[in-house]
C-alpha cells in the first residue's frame, strides 16, 4: 500500500502558475525526497498530495484509486508539519491519540497503539506532559508519533528538521531513516537541504519553479546530473563551472568539476592559483582558490592534513574522467 501517481497535475494561484503540468510516480515503500531552493513549489506539491490544496487540473491517485477530489482525511496520508503543529492544550498522549479518537476507535485499541508508538519513539516518560514542556526534538517525535499511529498509506514530511539545531538534525535524520527501514511505508519528504536529500532518499525529485528537473537515486543525480541546475544543486560544496575556451576544448559550452575531483599537485597542474580561504574541518579541507581569469574562486577538497594556508600558491589538476559537460542550453552532453 502507498503508491501515489500524479498525472498532469497543475496548480495555479490566480494567474500565477506555481506548478506547470507535472507527472510523477511514487512507488510503494519508497523514500522520496522533494528538494529544491525555497519557492520552487515543493511544499505546494506536498500539500496537493495531502489534499490541503486543490489541484487546478490533472489527477492524483493513491493506490490506484483516484484521490483528486478526496478530502485530506480520506486519503489515508499522515503529515508531519514544519512547526510540528502539536495541539498545545493536549497532553502528548492526547495529541498522539487525536487521529484515532477522530476515527472513533475504541479506547483499548487507542491505548495500545499510543503506547506502541511511544515505545518506538522513546516518548514513554513524556506522555502526560504538554507540548510546551518538551524540547524541539521531543516535539518532533510526538508529531511523528501522531502520524504513525494512524498506520497511513504514506507519510508526508514538510521540512520537519528545519527548526532543530544542527546536532539534533543529524540525529533525527537517522531516526527517520531507521523508522522508514522498520515500517517500510512510503514516505515523501520535502527539504531544501540537499544533504538531507542525499542521505535519506531512495529517490530524489529535484524541483525548480514547479518543474521536475530530474528524478533519480542520490548517486545517479550525483554522477550524472541532467542539467546545470541539478549539477549545481546536488553535491556539497557545489560544483565548479568553467565556461569559455577551456570548456570549448572539451566540446561543451560549460564544463563542471566537483571540488572532490580536483587534486592539489606539486607541479604541472592545469590551473595555478592563490588560496583565498582554507576551511579545515579535520576530516577534509576545503580550499577556495583564486585563479586568474575566473570571477569566482574555485573550490577544492583536499584531505584533512593539507598544509596549505591563506595566501599560498597551489597547482590544481582535475580528474579528467569526472568532468561533466553541458551544452548551450545547459543540458548534459553524454
Amino acid at each position, binding site marked *: 500500500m502507498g503508491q501515489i501517481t500524479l498525472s498532469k497535475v497543475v496548480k495555479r494561484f490566480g494567474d500565477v502558475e506555481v506548478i506547470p503540468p507535472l507527472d510523477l510516480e511514487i512507488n510503494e515503500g519508497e523514500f522520496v525526497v522533494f528538494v529544491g531552493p525555497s519557492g520552487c513549489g515543493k511544499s505546494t506539491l506536498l500539500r496537493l498530495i*495531502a489534499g490541503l490544496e486543490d489541484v487546478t487540473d490533472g489527477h492524483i491517485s493513491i493506490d490506484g484509486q483516484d484521490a483528486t477530489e478526496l478530502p*485530506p*482525511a480520506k486519503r489515508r496520508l499522515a*503529515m508531519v508539519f514544519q512547526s510540528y*503543529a502539536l*495541539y498545545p492544550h493536549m497532553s502528548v498522549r492526547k495529541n498522539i491519540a487525536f487521529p484515532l479518537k*477522530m476515527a472513533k476507535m475504541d479506547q483499548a485499541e487507542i491505548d495500545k497503539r499510543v503506547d506502541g508508538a511511544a515505545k518506538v519513539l522513546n516518548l514513554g516518560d513524556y506522555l502526560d506532559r504538554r507540548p*510546551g514542556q518538551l524540547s524541539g526534538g521531543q516535539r518532533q517525535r510526538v508529531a511523528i508519533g501522531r502520524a504513525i499511529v494512524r498506520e497511513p498509506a504514506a507519510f508526508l514530511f514538510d521540512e520537519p528538521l528545519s527548526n532543530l539545531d544542527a546536532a539534533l538534525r543529524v540525529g533525527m535524520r537517522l531516526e527517520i531513516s531507521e523508522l522508514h527501514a522498520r515500517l517500510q511505508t512510503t514516505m515523501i519528504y520535502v527539504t531544501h537541504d540537499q544533504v538531507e536529500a542525499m542521505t535519506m532518499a531512495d529517490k530524489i525529485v529535484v524541483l525548480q519553479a514547479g518543474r521536475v528537473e530530474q528524478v533519480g537515486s542520490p548517486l545517479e543525480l550525483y554522477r550524472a546530473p541532467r542539467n546545470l541546475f541539478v549539477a549545481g544543486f546536488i553535491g556539497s560544496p557545489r560544483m565548479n563551472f568553467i565556461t569559455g575556451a577551456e570548456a570549448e576544448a572539451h566540446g561543451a559550452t560549460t564544463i563542471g568539476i566537483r571540488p572532490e575531483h580536483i587534486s592539489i599537485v606539486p607541479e604541472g597542474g592545469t590551473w595555478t592559483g592563490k588560496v583565498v580561504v582554507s576551511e579545515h574541518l579535520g576530516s577534509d579541507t576545503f580550499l577556495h582558490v583564486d585563479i586568474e581569469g575566473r570571477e569566482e574562486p574555485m573550490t577544492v577538497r583536499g584531505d584533512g592534513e593539507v598544509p596549505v594556508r591563506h595566501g599560498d600558491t597551489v597547482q590544481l589538476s582535475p580528474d579528467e574522467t569526472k568532468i561533466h559537460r553541458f551544452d548551450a542550453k545547459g543540458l548534459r552532453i553524454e
Partner: protein
Amino acid sequence: MATQHSRAAARLMISPAVILLLLWMIVPLAMTVYFSFLNYNLLMPGAHNFIGFENYKYFVTNPAFITALINTLVLVGGVLLITTVGGTLLALLLDQPVWGQGIVRILVIAPFFVMPTVSALVWKNMFMNPVNGLFGWIATSFGFAPFDFLSQAPLFSIILIVSWQWLPFATLILLTALQSLDSEQVEAAEMDGAGPFARFFHITVPHLSRAATVVILIQTIFLLSVFAEILVTTNGGPGNASTNLTYLVYAQSLLQFDVGGGSAGGIIAVILANIVAIFLMRMIGKNLDA
C-alpha cells in the same frame, strides 16, 4: 535595579504615583465605610450619630435586597453568556475573507462607541416600544399583538441592551485571538480526520479560552455596576423586577436621601464583587497561566 542605591532611587521616583493612587482609592473607601456606620439622612440635617451595623441590617433585611442581588447575578451571567457565545460566532464570521471586510469590522465595533444612556434610549423608544418600536411594528404587521418588552420582561430587555453594547468588545478580542491560531494546527487536525465541528471544539475553542477568560473578567467588572441602562429604561421596575445592587444603592441614597444606608449598600456591593471575583478566578483563572 542592580545596586541598593538605584533601588532606593527607584522607590523614591515611583512613590508620588503610588501615593496618589492609594489616596485616590483609600479616601473614598474610608469615607464610605465611615458613612455606613452613621445615621446620616439628608432629610434630617445635623443628626449624624453613630449607629453601628444598623444600616447594614436595614439594607440586608430590605425585601428588595435579595431580588436586587439575584438580578445583578442574572444580569452579569446573561450578558456574559450572550457576549462570549455570540462574540465567538461573530468572530468566526468576521475571520472569513469577504469583500469589504474592513468596513464590516468597523461597523461591528460601532456599538461600543455609543454611550450607554443613548443606546438604551434608542432601544427603548425605537425598538422595544410596543407602539412606535420596530419590534412592535414587525409583530403587528404579522398580525400578532406587540410585546411590551420593558414591562413584560424588563430584566431580559436590559440584558439584551447591555449585551448589544458589549458584544463588539468580546468579538474584537476573540477575533484577534482567532487570527493568532496557527493554520498548520488546523490543517493537522484536518489531516487527522477532524470535521469542521470537531476542529472547532478541539482546536479553536481551547485556543480561544485565554482570550475568553480576559473577556469574562473585564466584562464582569463593568457589568456588576450597570446603572445608566436601568435608569433610562425601566427605573428598576416594574416593582423592583429590574433593580440591581447598583440601582438599589442609588435608590437608597439619592431617592430616599439615606446616605448611611446607601453607603452600607455600597460596601456590600464591594464585598459581593470580591466574592464574584474569587469564584471567577477559581473557575477560569487557570486559563491565564502560560
